[in-house]
């Protein structure tokens, strides 16, 4: 036991103690105990409190975690146990002091919920394990004990033996995989990629019909964000234009479909497909109008202008000025459903529609990215000045990127509006733009698998987190920070393509520019 031991132990303990206090102040201990109780098969009604034993399980886990993290990598086993002990004890001390305050509140029946809403007497009582004064001591003891346990666990799991064991398992898994690939027939190996795509396709065809409307809805939301993400990626990832106003282009697609295919305000009723086409065109026009004046802007200046553009569009859609056209805050209702071969759409058909739209978007994206146009965009992103001096018409290509990206946003918007049968200004707020931006970056810029993963993470995760009720966005925010710290390059980072092989046909031995002059300029 040395100074370092005490220092790390108490620092970590303090940290965990403070976190615990925070969790109690937002009533998260109740939530956690509820979750544990649900996992263990005892249902807890909304708004009711879980049994104390589940609370204890939560505290034990937390205390062990505190102990675990107080253990440093260096030092002897006893030292490590000490670190766990000190970590747990410090946590216990902090929590006990806090418990004392809570106990005081409980005893004097002081209601502080005007300031700290979560601190109801019931919640305090549960935290003190229903033991009132004794609860404080119990908490301290519990954390001290679990701190040592956590320390012991850390010692055990980080030991050489365990490391070897994990290594062995990893190798055997690798071997197994190797053996399986080896045993596969050659043509399976050769077409493995295609088999995978085929399976994916079958899965995508089967799932929507099977898994119910809620999953279809969530999946569709994810798909719409994939399309939006691809659109934004063309502007941001490929051509390097910091766009925070994609919601406006999204809105143009949505409102076009809404206006052209609903009874309000003109009863145009064009049908879904022509309206969708108009929506895409309108979004492109929007992108063009936005792009023309602001071509010279760069970086965050571009960002704030596009943000402004997004806000202007949203405010206008919502304003008294355009109420007759857009329904103002009321939005546009009763958007007609598309029909396909005379059959009206249901949730399954929408899922298919979105899958197809997604597939088309991905296809288009790949085609454009791996072309002269795509490379011109990338060079603009890297260094616009040099790009232009290398011969790229920077302004033209930037505009093109905005327009192509806008087309995707318009497509997403059109489908979105029709699927909800309603669209209003609240669907097109700044948060939408920010979400799309996050999708692209969390997933991995310029990476389609990344964008798909990002959409699942950003649109699917909050739905999964519904179990957490009001803690949903709190946890989501923390996860967002965590994801960026753990994988700053995105969930599935992009890599540059290998091209040298493609050009290595071995036909040409030396450079002869004149020979190809005629072929290139036609």
């Amino acid at each position, binding site marked *: 036991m040395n100074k370092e031991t005490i220092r790390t132990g108490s620092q970590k303990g303090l940290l965990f103690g403070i976190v615990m206090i925070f969790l109690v102040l937002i009533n998260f201990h109740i939530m956690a105990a509820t979750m544990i109780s649900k996992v263990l098969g005892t249902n807890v009604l909304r708004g009711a409190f879980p049994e104390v034993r589940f609370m204890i399980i939560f505290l034990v886990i937390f205390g062990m975690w505190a102990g675990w993290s107080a253990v440093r990598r260096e030092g002897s086993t006893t030292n490590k146990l000490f670190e766990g002990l000190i970590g747990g004890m410090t946590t216990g001390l902090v929590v006990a002091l806090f418990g004392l305050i809570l106990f005081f509140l409980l005893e004097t029946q002081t209601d502080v919920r005007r300031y700290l*809403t979560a601190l109801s007497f019931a919640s305090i009582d549960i935290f003190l394990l229903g033991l009132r004064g004794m609860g404080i001591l119990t908490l301290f003891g519990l954390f001290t004990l679990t701190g040592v346990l956590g320390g012991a666990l850390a010692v055990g799991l980080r030991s050489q033996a365990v490391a070897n064991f994990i290594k062995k398992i990893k190798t055997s898994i690798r071997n197994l995989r190797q053996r399986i690939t080896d045993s596969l027939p050659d043509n399976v190996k050769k077409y493995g990629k295609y088999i995978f795509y085929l399976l994916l396709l079958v899965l995508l065809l089967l799932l929507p019909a099977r898994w119910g409307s809620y999953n279809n809805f969530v999946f569709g939301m994810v798909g719409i964000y994939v399309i939006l993400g691809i659109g934004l990626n063309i502007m941001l990832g490929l051509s390097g234009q910091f766009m925070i106003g994609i919601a406006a282009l999204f809105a143009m697609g949505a409102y076009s479909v809404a206006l052209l295919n609903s009874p309000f305000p003109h009863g145009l009723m064009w049908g879904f497909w022509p309206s969708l086409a108009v929506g895409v065109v309108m979004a492109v026009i929007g992108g063009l109008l936005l792009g*023309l004046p602001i071509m010279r802007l760069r970086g965050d200046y571009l*960002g704030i202008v596009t943000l*402004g553009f997004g806000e202007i569009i949203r405010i*206008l859609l919502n304003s008294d000025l355009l109420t007759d056209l857009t329904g103002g805050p009321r939005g546009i209702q009763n958007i007609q459903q598309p029909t396909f071969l005379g059959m009206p759409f249901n949730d399954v058909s929408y899922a298919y529609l979105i899958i197809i739209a997604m597939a088309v978007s991905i296809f288009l994206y790949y085609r454009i990215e791996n072309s002269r146009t795509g490379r011109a965009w990338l060079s603009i992103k890297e260094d616009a000045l040099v790009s232009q001096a290398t011969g790229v018409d920077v302004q033209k290509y930037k505009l093109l990127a905005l327009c192509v990206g806008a087309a995707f946003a318009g497509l997403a918007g059109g489908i979105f509006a029709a699927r909800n049968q309603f669209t209003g200004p609240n669907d097109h707020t700044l948060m939408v733009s920010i979400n799309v931006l996050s999708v692209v970056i*969390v997933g991995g810029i310029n990476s389609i698998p990344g964008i798909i993963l990002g959409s699942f993470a950003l649109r699917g995760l909050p739905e999964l987190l519904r179990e957490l009720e009001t803690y949903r966005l709190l946890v989501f925010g*923390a996860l*967002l920070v965590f994801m*960026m710290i753990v994988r700053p390059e995105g969930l599935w980072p992009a890599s540059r393509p290998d091209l040298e092989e493609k050009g290595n046909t071995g036909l040409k031995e030396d450079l002869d520019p004149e020979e190809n002059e005629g072929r290139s300029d036609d």
Partner: protein
Amino acid sequence: MDANQSSPPKLTRRNYSKIIRPIFGILVLGYILWRLYLVLIVEQAYSAEVWVRLLISGLIIGGVYALIAIGYTLVYGILFMINFAHGEVMMIGTFAGYFLFEITKGINVAGAGNPPLSFSDAYPFLSVILAFLVGMTVSATAGYFLEKIAYRPLRGAPRLIPLISAIGASFFLQNAAQLLFSPQVRDYANPQAIARGSGWNLMINESRIVITYTGVLTFVLSILLMIGLYVMVQKTKLGKAMRAVASDKKTAALMGIDVDAIISRTFIISGALAGAAGVMWGLHNGLVHFYVGFLPGIKAFTAAVLGGIGNIPGAMLGGMFLGLVESLGPTALGISFQLKDVIAFLIMIVILVFRPSGLLGEVLSEEKV
């Protein structure tokens, strides 16, 4: 020599922005001038006192925007990142000040007045100072930990990565505040002496114009803080070290500057400014709730960019400008107040179209190659 080689260059080449920019500028400016002409000269709908009132509220809100904007600009200048959670740091300061006033309101001072006065009524000056100290300290601490937890691990990552981390932090802080203090809207318990709405009366055209104490406090204090900060950044060793870190972290470290410490201090200062802005907000407007930082945050960010992001006087100018446009714009142009943000954003876009790096930003027309 083939024909292509010796043919002289063709000289017609269009430059879109060269054509579009003036058209766009003339359209927007023309519209604005025409509206101004209608409202100010043709209709003459408003008399002097209206303009004075608008000017006053514009200056006050502009001061607050400017103060928050400086926080954005400081951080941006050093890390080139948009600290999206800055508005939430301000929110935390607002809450800190709120609790301080609740406490000082709750303490009765023996022997002062009958019925006994509360501490904050008995010593308004002291409790306001305390509120600012507490608000600034708490926000500064929040800024410090925000950097340490959410941004420091991302040092060196591409610029957009910390932005997302900041968005995550912003969600977290907002929701944490909501869960801690409930989504309820509360008001600052101002000391009696500077109750909201009370102030000096000024008569113009026989109508009373109130120059509120809180407004004056807000305006004067924000100007003082800004000047202080500017002097600090330009003249002190810390300020110069901050600029050195801003321009090149590695080289700064080679000079013996502790880069991490400087960045931490930057966040502390920017947090303290946001905290001050938060307490001003509470004192002048009252409103305290978990979402209170969001709108001013976006506005201040806009102001910072408008002024030329990374540039401190630019942030001040941008904030004041935005405050004044928001307050005077709709009336001067005779447009609905619902569209005041449209006016503000439009004017901002026009300015940026013609000055692509903000009002006071570095002119990058000819970049060194």
